């Protein structure tokens, strides 16, 4: 039992992202309402963002903005060590992903509005029944 807790605690960031991802995936597959599916998609995206950002973490390191970066640079610049700063790359990738997530959310809502205008409902089974009627 002690071993199991240690395994979970050592990699808890992965466990959180997997839990969030399962919630999002379940909502996208099983929920009947289109808006709930969109919410599930957003939870899924959040899980991926959390995963990426957590891979960038580094013990004993600070945010990737160089200290003493405002003054002179060139010959007299301070020596920068990679262990002192966390990995900037996942942050860059997720920075753009967050804004793109908002944009895709907008498109998804626009599509949902169009579906509602056409079929007067957002429930998937009712939409399918109306399509089969025609």
């Amino acid at each position, binding site marked *: 039992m002690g071993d199991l807790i240690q395994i979970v605690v050592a990699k808890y960031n992965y466990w959180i992202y997997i839990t969030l991802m399962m919630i999002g995936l379940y909502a996208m597959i099983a929920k009947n309402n289109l808006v709930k599916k969109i919410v599930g998609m957003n939870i899924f995206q959040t899980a991926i963002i959390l995963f990426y950002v957590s*891979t960038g973490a580094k*013990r004993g390191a600070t*945010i990737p*903005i*160089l200290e003493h970066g405002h003054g002179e640079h060139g010959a007299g610049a301070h020596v920068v060590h990679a262990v002192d700063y966390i990995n900037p790359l996942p942050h860059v990738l997720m920075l*753009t992903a967050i804004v793109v997530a908002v*944009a895709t959310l907008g498109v998804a809502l626009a599509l949902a509005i169009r579906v509602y205008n056409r079929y007067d409902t957002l429930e998937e089974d009712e939409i399918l029944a109306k399509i089969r009627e025609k």
Partner: protein
Amino acid sequence: MKIIGLIIALSTGVLLICATGDFPRWADPASPASTHLSPHFIEKTMEETSVPNIVTAVLADYRGYDTMYETAVIFTAGLACFILLRIFVKEEPGDRLYRHLLTGVTVRVKEGTKLPPSEDFERIDATWTPPDLIIKTICRFLIPFIQLFALYVIAHGHHSPGGGFQGGVILGASIILLAISQDLRTSVRRMREKLDAVLCAVGVIIYAGTGALCLLLGLNFLDYSALASVLHCDPVTARSHGILIVEIGVGIAVMCTMIWIYNNVSSIGKYDEGL
């Protein structure tokens, strides 16, 4: 369907949990993600681009292509919302309602007649509800400061957390706050639909144009050190300035896309009173 979904979600989760056994421990400095490319970024950014914020340097310089297409994706999303939702219908026949701003009197204008052109009248819908005085006043007071902060976030992205994406979203949010606290017509009057759409494209063009200018000056696409001859500075400083230029482009594109998406989705493409 629910059971199938549960089985799929659970089996994916179990597979991923099994895979975490091979993953590096949390915050491990020797993990593969932080041993190959990131040391180069951290140690060389200052001498290559003279930007202390490594995230900004990687975003707009080392991974400039990625960000450029990301901006194009956002522009396309705004365009998709516009094409899906915007309805250009002629004015519906019937009477129109106007509200006199000073007295709060609502005037019904018969079809075919027109009000004398005056700033005192505001067009309203039949479902109009007066905006709450406290919310309206506080928002009017706050919006300029929000916009000032957004400009700071864009301009100071080299030295502190920030940049085009974050500042653009804050700028967009300030206009959306105006639309929420009053109504959509008020915000559209300040940020016209056509101006919004044009600026959205202009942001992407600033980014791509900077890249193309580098190409014309004899270096690779988006290699900002080519701008040194135009900006009259050394190539390292030119890369710093090039990053600022494309961040401004990104900020404009993101701001306008946020407003564009909100306007279309909240009024279902009719650009009336909105929410």
